């Protein structure tokens, strides 16, 4: 019984050894064939690889085509820039002294409807102008698609929150001012 088992084992081991030898041989054949193909490729048509590389480069350059949105974003950035010139000059001469004034003075000043309207316009237009700018910067440097989308979304969210806070805050200040 045990003898038979041993013989069985032995023959299995022999088969395995044979298989390995056969595999090695096959592997060797394959490698040789691959080398031959490689040599044949470069010998028969050396320009083929060059032409394929050019084709790849051309496809990479054309990619998915033009998005058709470049001019639109660019125009909004320039329009907001134009609007910001007078607003920024007004802001520089009038607001900066208010920033460190006593809070009650500042609140009263902001509660005057004209001041509130001008500073509201300045902040909202600046936020629109700034989101485009930040987006361009992020597109320039953040090349991973996930991080790019996430970071631009974060910028948009912060800008939207700031815009909302500005509008609500100014409304409160105006009503307090008129009421008081």
């Amino acid at each position: 019984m045990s003898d038979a088992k041993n013989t069985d084992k032995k023959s299995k081991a022999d088969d395995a050894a044979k298989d390995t030898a056969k595999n090695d041989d096959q592997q060797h054949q394959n490698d040789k064939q691959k080398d031959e193909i490689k040599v044949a490729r470069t010998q028969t048509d050396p320009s083929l690889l060059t032409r394929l590389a050019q084709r790849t480069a051309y496809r990479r350059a054309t990619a998915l085509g033009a998005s058709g949105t470049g001019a639109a974003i660019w125009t909004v950035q320039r329009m907001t820039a134009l609007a910001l010139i007078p607003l920024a000059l007004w802001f520089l001469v009038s607001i900066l002294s208010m920033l460190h004034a006593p809070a009650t003075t500042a609140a009263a000043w902001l509660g005057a409807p004209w001041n509130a309207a001008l500073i509201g316009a300045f902040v909202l237009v600046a936020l629109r102008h700034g989101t485009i700018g930040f987006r361009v910067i992020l597109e320039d440097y953040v090349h991973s698609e996930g991080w790019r989308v996430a970071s631009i979304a974060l910028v948009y969210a912060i800008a939207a929150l700031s815009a909302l806070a500005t509008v609500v805050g100014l409304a409160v200040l105006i009503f307090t001012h008129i009421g008081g």
Partner: protein
Amino acid sequence: MTARSTTRPLSPHLQHYRPEITSILSVLHRATGIVLGLGAVGLAWWITALALGGSAQSVTHWLLTSWLGYLALFGWTFALGFHLCNGVRHLFWDAGMGFEMDSVRRSGKAAVGGALLLTVIVWIVVIV
């Protein structure tokens, strides 16, 4: 990111390219833009704090009148002054004007001068 298909080295670029007044001011325009973006959010917060009143108001006032607050406001003034002047320079370019290298360099110097002038004037007004 450009997929590099080979192990070929990349030639030196940023490390090696000579900076000029044009490229330096371009970087400065971007940097001041980032400062102003943060400033706009800060401005929204300032308005909110004034509307909220109470401790939000007093903490904000304390921050703005600290030396750090003054430093930030001063930096912000210069950033606004430069981004404004250099932005006007950009708008002229967008209209197709001022593209000869001589005038590009001259307008760059003018933008820096204008920014410094604006900053000084505004801060004299603030102090007085």
